[in-house]
């Protein structure tokens, strides 16, 4: 599935979005684990998951067709 990236994750991986190999439906927590193992070069960066433009909890389910984004710690202001 495609996941969209922001901030340091986008810069370090050099793209607006990357593919994560994970079977759907899955949980946000499972997606986090899959991403960290498949993109080990950025595995030290903490991030939250957003599903369809809302923050997800770790138990939130990701379905086929969902818009998913990975969000490193925010720093507005």
């Amino acid at each position, binding site marked *: 599935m495609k996941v969209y990236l*922001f*901030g*340091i994750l*986008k*810069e370090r991986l050099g793209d607006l979005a990357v593919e994560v190999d994970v079977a759907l439906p899955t949980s946000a927590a499972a997606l986090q684990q899959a991403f960290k193992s498949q993109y080990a070069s950025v595995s030290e960066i903490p991030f939250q998951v*957003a599903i369809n*433009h*809302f*923050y997800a909890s770790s138990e939130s389910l990701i379905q086929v067709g969902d818009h998913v*984004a990975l*969000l*490193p*710690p*925010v*720093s*507005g*202001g």
Partner: protein
Amino acid sequence: MNKFELIEQASDFPDIYSERPTHLGGEVVFNGMVRTPNLGKEVLYLEFEAYPELFENQMHLIASRLCKDFGVDAIHLFHRVGKVYPGEIAVTAVVRSKHRKECFAACNELVDELKRSVPIWKKEVNTDGSFWVSATP
């Protein structure tokens, strides 16, 4: 009425004083500006990136909570994206209510919540290089 915008140019900041409701007697405005030096280094500029759809959704949730918890009537937040230079405003937060005390308290919480959960990221570019700033409430 609440209002939230991502601002691309300094000249695009709205005139926050042009639409004052007559039934609200209190208004607190916080402007956050880019400062230099930071951590002993001269800041050349900050570069802000946002996730617009989540920004809009998250700001609605935050404003609803603040209006309920503090009893205030209007929350406005305007945040720059792109490059912002020292001395320029990066964010303007406005809270309006009938009275003063809840305006100050809600505005303080609004800026804290901005730093906790609003999907905006900043990269500091200084004379030695650049780095992404982590959340620091």
